[in-house]
């Protein structure tokens, strides 16, 4: 069952089409990452899904209700933590939460105990009687979460919930998001933090110029990027093999190929090791940084590539002080998906 479905959802402002025939399915009880560059149509989509604006055409079904026909039913199912903390600054955390609870028509007998439980959950109870204006950024976000969860929404929209927060508070909120999802809530996470989306989301949709340009699991999206590059990469690799002196400082040539990156720092970069690496069949380029770190691009299609390269280093007496590998990231997918559309637009 889907928590949210849109069918040709469109929003037009005068002559500008903010959302263009968007077809989207967000399965129930999953965390969905909504990505897109600024001005891509994410906010407009959220506004339509949360009944703040009416679609120009098409349909949006939220929790089984049509946003056009049953807006109040939809609103009862939704919670929203906006990017800008929109609580009343002169009211305390408790008072803001009570206000929200009453706007959702929560039974007065259970209202306060529910708020206390939520405060406990997000760890803001110690500031229950503090005014919002007296709280730090992280505390405000937690207070905003309490106010948004007080009516036990089945679907929770989080718009950049961790922006501007310190790494520790970020992690607390991430744990909380997982907890809320484990509790059976569908979460729609809008974020520019690719790591956050990659780590938390079951599915990711990338919206650009009002269209859904990519939709899959984070891993699926990364794999699809590799697949789409495979032909191009293979061709380039053949070219590289045909040339004799390509294995030094050719990072620029292969930069766009999204080859797996492998880098290590040795105790001593002796010539023997460098030459052996140059001759390794899996190494497609080699670059030595100023600090002596060796950055390689290796053929990711072969599962033995990493161990083979490492064996080469160790067999030449190299002592590895540190090592790291880098896979294609969600950020790569994002840039590729959005840049293709932008280029088409410009064309």
């Amino acid at each position, binding site marked *: 069952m889907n928590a949210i479905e849109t069918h040709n959802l469109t929003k037009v402002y005068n002559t500008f089409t903010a959302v263009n025939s968007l077809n989207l399915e967000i399965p129930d009880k999953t965390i969905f990452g909504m990505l897109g560059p600024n001005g891509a149509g994410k906010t407009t989509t959220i*506004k339509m899904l*949360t*009944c*703040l*604006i009416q679609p120009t055409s098409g349909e949006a079904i939220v929790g089984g209700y049509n946003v056009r026909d049953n*807006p*109040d*039913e939809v*609103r*009862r199912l*939704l919670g*929203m933590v*906006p990017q*800008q*903390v*929109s*609580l*009343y600054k002169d009211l305390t955390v408790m008072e803001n939460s009570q206000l*929200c609870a009453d*706007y*959702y*028509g929560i039974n007065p007998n259970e209202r306060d105990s529910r708020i206390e439980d939520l405060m406990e959950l997000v760890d803001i109870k110690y500031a229950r009687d503090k005014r919002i204006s007296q709280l730090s950024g992280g505390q405000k976000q937690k207070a905003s979460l309490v*106010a948004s969860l007080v009516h036990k929404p089945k679907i929770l929209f989080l718009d950049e919930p961790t922006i501007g927060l310190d790494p520790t508070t970020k992690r607390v909120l991430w744990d909380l998001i997982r907890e809320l999802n484990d509790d059976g809530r569908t979460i729609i996470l809008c974020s520019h933090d690719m790591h956050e989306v990659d780590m938390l989301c079951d599915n990711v949709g990338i919206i650009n110029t009002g269209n859904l340009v990519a939709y899959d699991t984070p891993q699926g999206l990364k794999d699809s990027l590799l697949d789409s590059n495979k032909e191009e990469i293979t061709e380039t690799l053949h070219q590289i093999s045909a040339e004799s002196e390509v294995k030094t400082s050719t990072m620029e040539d292969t930069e766009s190929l999204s080859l797996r990156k492998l880098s290590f720092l040795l105790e001593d970069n002796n010539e023997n090791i460098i030459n052996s690496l140059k001759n390794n069949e899996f190494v497609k380029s080699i670059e030595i940084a100023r600090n002596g770190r060796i950055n390689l691009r290796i053929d990711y299609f072969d599962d033995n590539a990493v161990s083979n390269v490492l064996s080469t280093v160790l067999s030449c007496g190299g002592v590895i002080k540190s090592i790291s590998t880098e896979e294609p990231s969600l950020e790569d997918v994002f840039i590729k998906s959005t840049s293709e559309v932008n280029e088409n637009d410009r064309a």
Partner: protein
Amino acid sequence: MIELKKFWWMIKKELISLKRHPSRLVSILVFPIIMILLFGYGMGGEMTDLPIVVVSQSHGDLTDLTLDTIKTTDTYRVVDVIDDQNKAENMVDSGEVKAAIIMPKDYDDTNSSSQKAVTLYLDSSDQMASQILDSATQAIFSKLSNMVAAGSVTAVSENSTAAPSLSHQLSNFKDDISLHINRIYGNIKYIDFLVPAVLGMTVMMSCMMGMGATIAGERETGELARLFMTPTSVSTVIGGKIASKLLIELVRALILIIMAILLFNVSIKGGLLQTFIVLVFGALCFVGFGIMLSARTQTQEDYAQIVLPFSLPMMFVSGVFYPIETMPWIFQKIAYLFPLTYLNDAMRAVMLKGQTLGDVWLDLVILVGYTLLFFIIGVKRFNRDI
């Protein structure tokens, strides 16, 4: 030392910002023109054309001369000349005219030996107009009296077209003319005249400004969007805003009234409760006006620029400081489009004349009409958008 390039950037930035916010630009360009027009024509001019009624119960040369003199005096605008004294007094009581000049039945009786007692039945609640009418009427009848006593006459008013041929006939009059002034609401000080309208104006300004902060401000900071994401109707949110604003404004109005009584000994002839009720009608109306204007305004700054061209002209044209009747006709027409005019009228009627809510029903009905209109437009236009 000022760094010119940076200094210039501040000016440039403001100009660009203005250009890109047409509502602010229009406000800046049009507003001073409106203000100087209103101030110059509405407040700076001489007080002329005050509406009066004349009761003429006799016929003869002196009556003709007197009527002619009154009609050609700039201070007056003679609405009617009638012979029914009660009707004339009713016209003054109802506010239709500012005064009635009542000439007695024996005004033209050459055989009468007694003084001819002319009465100026004066609406003293309009303190400024009544002062002007008082002195102008005294001047005319004093001059007429002197001429009658001297047995000769020339044009009394500078603008009079009275025929000199009448002069010889006036020699038959044996006695002069006396003028009795009947200030129907007693001697009213300028502060008494000002306070009801200042109360109305204060309620108007604070309601309109306050609603901007509540609606446009909360829209700007996102609090309003959070409310609209709940299963709540626009009218509930707006209703709540109105009630809270109304409560605050009425407390403010009450403090104003009490301070006016304590500090300036202002009398409230119609009683505190009725005055307060009239203010409630006014406050509701202006809260509605604020909601209508803020329905689609995204920021507080935009709202402030939009509200000023309405609130300040309303202040000058609606008879707060100066009677509406003395303004050029176009401003009079505009004045009757503004709800503040009706609030001022009702406030003065209750506070200065001691009239009841029933007496000012028309003002109240008009205010309610405006209130409904503003609320309907406001709710219809209201944007749930963040």
